[in-house]
């Protein structure tokens, strides 16, 4: 029993940049793997937009045109928006609410994990699922809907939707920083489904009642939908303004999330 207590001098340890990057990579890898193995997330977020697209974009409205373009192309944009929104809201919002509410986030916070790595991993995971959804829709559209994309168009649509999905990660962050683990899925659905409908993601905006058409620009999915439609040639408005709306909404959500986390620090046990 001759062990001597080891007390290292403080400030002896500094993490190198490559070590920090390795942590970010690992955090992301395991966040993605964890979600992929969770069928309630991975199957439902991917299958719902794909199913709707096949039904409404490829089968029921075959040969129709909306906004001057083939309905199969139009609905890649709208169901693509619907899909990335779901992947982000459920992935970020519900995921965070669970981990926050059940104590796991505290274990992570008590560890030397760089705090931002946790959020960055979640954003990248959601973006990866968003990309999977968009690529699936485009593939189906090209193979079975007679949609034609140039390589640049395909990339632009993918990039628009995946980058735009970050706005819904921010919305998920705001929800997840307030909602409890049990109520989060219900809250997300209550926002997600009506917003999708009113933004013209299910039924083209041109076919919605007038008062909804006027109300739609209040909703962030409308703006991302219009940006995506712009790529396939059926967009309304100025792209820059849509981006501004999305960025503004994301910043608002970050502010709300900040309040939520501060509340946690004061109140929770």
């Amino acid at each position: 029993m001759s062990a001597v207590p080891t007390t290292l001098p403080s400030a002896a340890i500094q993490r190198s940049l490559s070590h920090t990057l390795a942590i970010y990579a690992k955090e992301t890898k395991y966040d993605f793997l964890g979600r992929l193995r969770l069928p309630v997330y991975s199957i439902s977020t991917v299958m719902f937009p794909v199913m709707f697209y096949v039904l409404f974009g490829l089968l029921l409205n075959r040969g129709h045109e909306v906004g001057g373009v083939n309905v199969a192309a139009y609905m890649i944009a709208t169901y693509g928006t619907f899909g990335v929104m779901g992947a982000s809201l459920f992935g970020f919002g519900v995921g965070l609410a669970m981990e926050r509410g059940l104590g796991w986030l505290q274990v992570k916070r008590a560890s030397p994990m760089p705090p931002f790595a946790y959020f960055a991993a979640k954003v990248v995971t959601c973006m990866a699922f968003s990309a999977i959804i968009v690529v699936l829709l485009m593939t189906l559209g090209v193979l079975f809907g007679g949609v034609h994309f140039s390589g640049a168009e395909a990339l632009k649509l993918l990039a628009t939707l995946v980058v735009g999905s970050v706005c819904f990660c921010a919305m998920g962050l705001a929800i997840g920083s307030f909602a409890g683990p049990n109520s989060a899925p219900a809250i997300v659905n209550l926002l997600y489904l009506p917003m999708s409908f009113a933004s013209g993601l299910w039924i083209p905006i041109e076919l919605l009642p007038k008062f909804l058409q006027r109300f739609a620009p209040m909703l962030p999915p409308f703006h991302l939908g219009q940006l995506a439609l712009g790529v396939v040639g059926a967009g309304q408005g100025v792209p820059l303004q849509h981006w501004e709306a999305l960025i503004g909404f994301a910043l608002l959500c970050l502010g709300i999330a900040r309040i939520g986390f501060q509340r946690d620090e004061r109140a929770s046990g």
Partner: protein
Amino acid sequence: MIAEIHIPQSRPGKRRSEAVVARLTNVSKNYGEIRALRRVALDVHAGEVVAVLGPNGAGKTTAVKLLLGLVAANWGRVSVFGGDPRNAENRMRTGAMLQVGRVPETLRVREHIDLFSSYYPNPLPMAEVLQASGLQGLDKRPFGELSGGQKQRLLFALAICGNPDLLFLDEPTVGLDVEARRVLWDEIRRLVARGKTVLLTTHYLQEADALADRIVVINQGAIIAEGTPSDIKARTAGRQIRCGSSLPIAAICSIPGVLEVRSDRDAFVIRAADAESVVRELLIRDPYVSGLEVTSAGLEEAFLALTQDNHQPEASRRVS
């Protein structure tokens, strides 16, 4: 193990250095109206095991969360390794086991450990972590398929995998069976033998007695007693005498050295600091004493006495 020879004042681990690695200075913490901690002062020295003992809701977990920088104190100062517990360098030297409702269930044991190990500069090898936490052979199992005890062991594995100098274990053996608890105790002793410092909370008195160099008893947010396990036991009622007697209860109370008397069915239970002198006096005063039994008051009794006393300050206890 030579250390098993009993030299007064030298439990294994008593070799504590003067270096304070974690400290609460007059800390108060409120959650809204609830006063979770009231002016608590606590020092943890390098190389020692401190057990924070108390009933549920006493404020044990709050003390740990303050020392981990997860919640901020309303009053007072919290320091770890002489600095803010939230410093990245401090966190790299600290491991924590908290009470968790659920962990991402689809990740495997090995993956959880791999991720947490990556946060630290000098983590332990995977095989060593699995062995120390008793998870050998379970490394490919998803968290969701582990039993309650195995889940608890994984949380322990995450606390130790970074080879930290300071460990916070909040109720580490909750939900473990007797065997698994022993294994964990052995592991904690091994960590201390390697020079680690441990602060653990528990409401198992036996656990505090078995592991700690020092016990801090906490109740309703305040520290009500502090000392070595034997100090704590000595502070309340050295021993307990049980016997039948024809004397009235008041007469027994008047015997010098009697701390407390209560009647239990057809016998009296007497708590006494110096049992021998009380028994001698009792036998002189009452020739009809029957069924005499002397037992040492365990930590359990000591703890109950301490915490109950806090509820009833007017109780008849008289401890010097």
